[in-house]
């Protein structure tokens, strides 16, 4: 049921939003019942019958003043509470722990100050957090229902979101701005840990992707393809030859294809050089029939070593 009747508040923002909501809903319910009950009462009381003459009343200035004046006070109060809550939600303490977020179709990357990268958000309980968010492609929106907050992640801009979790646990993160085919599957989680566990996790240099049991992610039998999965390639590309959003990886080495380079069609033969260029400069050559601008450059997503591995994996898929 609705959390706001139980006082269950996993984050500071939960209470803030629930209180404003409760205030507005309470006034609204009174108004709704008032209007509806009066209307139904009048319909019965002044039901048309013989000998009952209607009275023409053209209006009443005092009543007009009352029902403009009182609602004005009510809505200004609603605005004011909303403003107060908003100031709290947007306030960022100076010691806030900053985490960079990159959204892409259809996954999330969280980059920590010490270089750690994850696809779920790990945070310590009680500590103010500031998420600095960018998009690699279209608009998204980072939404944490349990914390009652969201903020759009806008292509070409940097936006932020700030909060402090109060209760340890695992809460859903959803994408709330429509972003195409798998919009509804762009879920991940925020995992709130106590300070000690978080420190341990944060300073653990072990490869994070191995430790993420919480995030359901299909594992492929060939280990090299797991890397493609982790890096987000598999959200659009496939290894089985099906091509819905992007060319498939299956057996592409040595094939000829028509590409558009600066709007001019030309034929290329797929080789290592072509694959490498397509990863770093995806829009330099667009395979005919696919859209320009769909794929962001992977320069920042891959280091030298990873790039070599990714190219190698793609070339090995038959």
């Amino acid at each position, binding site marked *: 049921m609705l959390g706001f009747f139980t006082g269950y508040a996993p984050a500071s923002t939960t209470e803030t*939003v629930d209180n404003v909501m409760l205030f*507005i*809903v309470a*006034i*609204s319910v009174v*108004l709704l019942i008032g*209007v*509806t009950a009066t*209307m139904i009462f*009048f*319909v019965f009381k*002044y*039901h*048309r*019958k013989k000998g009952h*003459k*209607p*009275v*023409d*009343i*053209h*209006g*009443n200035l005092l*009543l*007009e003043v009352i029902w403009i004046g009182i*609602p*004005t006070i009510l809505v200004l109060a*609603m*605005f004011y509470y*909303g*403003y107060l*809550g*908003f100031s709290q*939600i*947007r306030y960022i303490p100076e010691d806030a722990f900053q985490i960079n977020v990159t959204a892409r179709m259809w996954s999330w990357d969280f980059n920590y100050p010490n270089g750690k990268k994850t696809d779920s958000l790990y945070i310590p309980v009680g500590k103010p957090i500031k998420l600095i968010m960018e998009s690699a*492609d279209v608009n998204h929106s980072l*939404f944490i*229902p349990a914390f009652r*907050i*969201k*903020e*759009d992640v*806008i*292509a*070409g*801009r940097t*936006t932020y979101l700030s909060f402090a979790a109060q209760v340890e646990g695992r809460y859903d993160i*959803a*994408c*709330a701005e*429509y972003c*195409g*085919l798998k*919009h*509804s599957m762009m*879920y991940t989680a925020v995992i709130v840990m106590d300070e000690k566990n978080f420190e341990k996790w944060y300073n653990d240099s072990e490869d994070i992707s191995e430790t993420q049991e919480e995030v359901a992610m299909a594992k492929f039998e060939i280990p090299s393809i797991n890397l493609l999965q982790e890096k987000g390639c598999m959200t659009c590309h496939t290894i089985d030859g099906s091509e819905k*959003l992007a060319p498939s990886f299956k057996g592409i080495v040595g094939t000829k294809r028509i590409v558009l380079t600066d709007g001019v069609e030309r034929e290329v033969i797929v080789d290592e050089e072509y694959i490498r260029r397509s990863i770093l400069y995806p829009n330099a050559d667009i395979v005919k029939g*696919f859209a*320009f*601008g769909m794929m962001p450059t992977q320069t920042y997503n891959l280091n030298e070593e990873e790039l070599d591995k990714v190219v190698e994996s793609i070339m090995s898929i038959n």
Partner: protein
Amino acid sequence: MADGNAHVAAKSFYEEGTTKKSTGITSWLFSTDHKRIGLMYLVTITAFFFVGALFGVLMRLELMAPGETIMGAQEYNTLFTLHGVIMIFLFIIPGIPAIFGNFFLPLQLGAKDVAFPRLNLLSYWIYLIGSVLVILSLFMQGGPIDTGWTFYVPYSVRTTTSVSLPLFAAFVLGFSSILTGLNFIVTIHRMRAPGMNFFRMPLFGWSIYATAWIQVIATPVVGITILLVIIERSFGVGIFDPALGGDPILFQHLFWIYSHPAVYIMILPAMGVVSEIIPTFSRRTIFGYTPIAMSSLAIAFVGYLVWAHHMFTSGMSDTSRVIFSLLTYIVALPSGVKVFNWVATMYKGSIDPKPPFLWVMSFVFLFSIGGLTGLVLGSITADIHVHDTYFVVSHFHYVMFGGTGTIVFAALYYWFPKMFGKMYNIKWANINALFYIIAFNVLYFPKFIMGYQGMPRRYYDYLPEFADLQMLSTIGSWIMFATLVSIFLNLYLAIKKGKKAHNNPWGGVTLEWQTSSPPPLLNFDREITVNHEPYDFSQLKELDYESK
């Protein structure tokens, strides 16, 4: 005047047209008679309404259970886009002005036609061309559009589906809207019967007047925006897409500068109809004529200044969010004034709750829920949570379907006898009203709860915890669709073999009730002069009406 019905009824507009032949398809498609044009809109818009409703039912079927039920994600994304495009651009924006405004505005003003009858026909043709373009776009390379009806950039610039053609269709449809608005403004200024000053004009006219100004002033903005997106898609000019050097927030601003006033294009005419129906069935004058008339203008004006409340989480500056939240609360006030005056009009009336009145009562209840939940969305704090969730979807459907949609039916029940000269089955219509309000709340109320629990909108699939409420909502959609079919079946049978209706079955006093049903080609068989306020029921004893 009082003796209007004493004359032998002249030929109705069905028997006498503006074209050479008075029957056959060309006598309709080339007719400049405002009544025939209104009826053509009625037929076309009803057809699109059922297509849109069918798409809604299919979406609800898909969402009946988690996982794939009847279609894939791409089909679902296409379907919710088309549901939005059809319902917004082909049903609810033209809706009441094009059907009932065309048919009844000249009648209520005591005029023979609108100011520019040929322009009026052109508007219909443009509407028809626009709707054909929407249909054509479904079969274009890339498949039907999947951007959502808001066409947000950069997705709409990058998707491979057919975006430019449906966008161009919306551009074309915009001209139909602008020209209709222009026609109505001039009609109201120039065509009122002698003696009818602005404050003797029925309130439906006032609401159409306010709407028409929004149509004329706001629609060009979306037209320009749409052209810019098409140019961006076709020629790679960077306007909105950051990959090309553009700004996606600019698109959102331009889009909502039109699309927020557009929701007042959708609701204001409905409010005008309510102001007609309540006095007629309460048989007393409207309470607060001037406040109701002025609130329409206030809504039209303040409605221009609140667009960015659609963007409270978009990353625009915090100061803008605060200012737009304040302005949004101000625009709620004139709607409140209307509701209070309507209820006050029932006070000391002589109320006969016939079907049009029952539908208006449903409207007051559903629209109040829609309006009050708008207060939640107007608060920057609460909106941060419920924005882009089912809460917004539900709010929008309560306002637009529960508000405007309900009044489309109320207006049909109210004016049907005048339009067709036939009466429908009253008991059947009453039962439909009951089923409608039940179906509506089963279909949409669960979405408020799901929204607050964090169910985002435009989701093909969802978490298992929402399964029960999703199922409930789907059941509501079945009752709703059956009710809609039943409503139109009742009206269709009435046209085919209904009893002949009295010229004034409800005891109305506005001018449309002082001519025959259906009216003659030139509306009245005499010159009209007005020396009463619009809702003066003391004239009723001199008028002919069905007293039962």
